[in-house]
């Protein structure tokens, strides 16, 4: 498997409705290396999110195979932070551990350390209504990190935010993922976000989605997403992928 931690082969998904069969994903394959950040872009409604739903086990009826290296686990982060308003920030972050019956003093301390490290120390016992949109998204990320997944599945994680906090939060999330040595697959419709965030960008066709092209992103002086936007290659990638996406108004 030469340091691939996830291999997806010929993934396909067809939804059954009373009137018709809808093919959402067709012959989708990918491999993910340890520590790699991968983005999937494609026209809206093409079935990008379906791929993540299948990967994290929300959809069970699919074709093809998904191979995960031994001992590796997945964590899912959604577009909405979906914090539970009636729980404190800490209790929100402990949800996954409670459900997996792995909550003990060690795992709890791990979550508290994450919250302390990423600037939420003063909010551990607050309720979500006290937090800004960006902070809520950071809490959502820590809630996902709490179960120590190796691969993060990010489903349009920033699109519920306004454009300014969006940039800041994507930078934020990038740093956290790098610092915690995670791999990630991000689904987005924002090209600039995908290019500035990831090592590779997969471009999908319209529904049923299949892979149109895979770009390896090589930026000179690559650092964090906000700075990556200033690299000289950034615009070339942007124009190239934009044309491939072939948007119609």
């Amino acid at each position, binding site marked *: 498997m030469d340091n691939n931690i996830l291999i997806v082969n010929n993934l396909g998904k067809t939804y059954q409705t009373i009137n018709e069969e809808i093919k959402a994903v067709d012959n989708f394959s990918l491999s993910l290396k340890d520590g790699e950040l991968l983005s999937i872009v494609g026209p809206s409604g093409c079935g990008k999110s379906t791929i993540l739903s299948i990967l994290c*086990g*929300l959809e069970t009826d699919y074709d093809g195979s998904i191979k995960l290296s031994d001992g590796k686990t997945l964590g*899912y982060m959604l577009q909405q932070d*979906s914090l*539970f*308003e009636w729980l404190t920030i800490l209790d929100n972050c402990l949800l996954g551990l409670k*459900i997996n019956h792995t909550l003990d003093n060690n795992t709890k301390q791990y979550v508290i350390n994450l919250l302390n490290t990423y600037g939420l120390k003063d909010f551990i016992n607050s309720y979500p209504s006290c937090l800004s949109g960006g902070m809520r998204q950071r809490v959502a990320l820590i809630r996902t990190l709490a179960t120590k997944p190796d691969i993060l599945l990010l489903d349009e994680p920033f699109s519920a935010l306004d454009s300014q906090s969006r940039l800041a939060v994507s930078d934020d999330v990038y740093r956290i993922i790098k610092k915690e040595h995670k791999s990630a697959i991000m689904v987005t419709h924002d090209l600039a976000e995908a290019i500035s965030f990831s090592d590779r960008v997969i471009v999908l066709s319209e529904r049923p989605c299949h892979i149109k092209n895979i770009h390896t992103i090589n930026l000179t002086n690559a650092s964090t997403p906000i700075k990556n936007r200033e690299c000289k290659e950034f615009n070339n990638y942007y124009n190239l992928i934009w044309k491939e996406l072939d948007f119609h108004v």
Partner: protein
Amino acid sequence: MYSYKHKLFLKRIRRKKIFIITFQLLILFIFILLWQFLSDYGYINSFIGSSPKRVLQTLIKLYNSGDLLKHIYITCLETIISFSLATVIGIFIASIYWLFPIVHKICEPYLTIMNSLPKIALGPIIIIWVGAKMSSIIVMALLISLILTIINVHHSFVNTDYNKIKLLKSFNASNYQIYRYLIFPGNINGIINALKVNISMSLIGVIMGEFLVSKEGIGYLIMYGSQVFNLNLVISGIIVLCIVATVMFLIINFIENKLIKNKK
């Protein structure tokens, strides 16, 4: 600490509040005064229309004989019993419906029929089956409030934000875990709203039951009054009922505020 403008602002709010309460009391006062005046001067027949003075006399007489508190006690007791039963059973059934949607699908038409049926039509059967005593009043009130409790609580359960369910599913949560961590605690507001409807429905059921079978309670007081053509008694009963209903509503409101405050 406050600026002059802020003080002015607070003063204006306070003034508005006082104005509203004054007017509310004024309406009540004028109503009572007018009623007394019209019956004193014979514009309304005080035998049929009663009068504030007569109502007060009746209430005092009832209170002195100990009957008033006894009737209020009986009605409250019946309401609280049927309200509690409807709440517990209703939430339980709604939970079963959420956990096993197929059960809900199967039961749905019967629930709809039971909901549209005027439950008072079942009164005679209940009296025959359960007997002309307090338990048949409770069964009647229970039937009225239970169906609505099930429907309202279940409605709020199924309208839970799907993204939150998706989140728990991504942690491999079982159906029961989703219920325990999300569906129940996330719908406390919906449940309290159902209880608000439930308490007034229980009271309606109890009074209806008392009309049909009882020998005690406020409903009985009103019914008895109309049978012996003592309108003072009828109107006194209605006024007591108004007060009882208001107090019950205030208690539920108080509980709601307590629960919401704990969350902030």
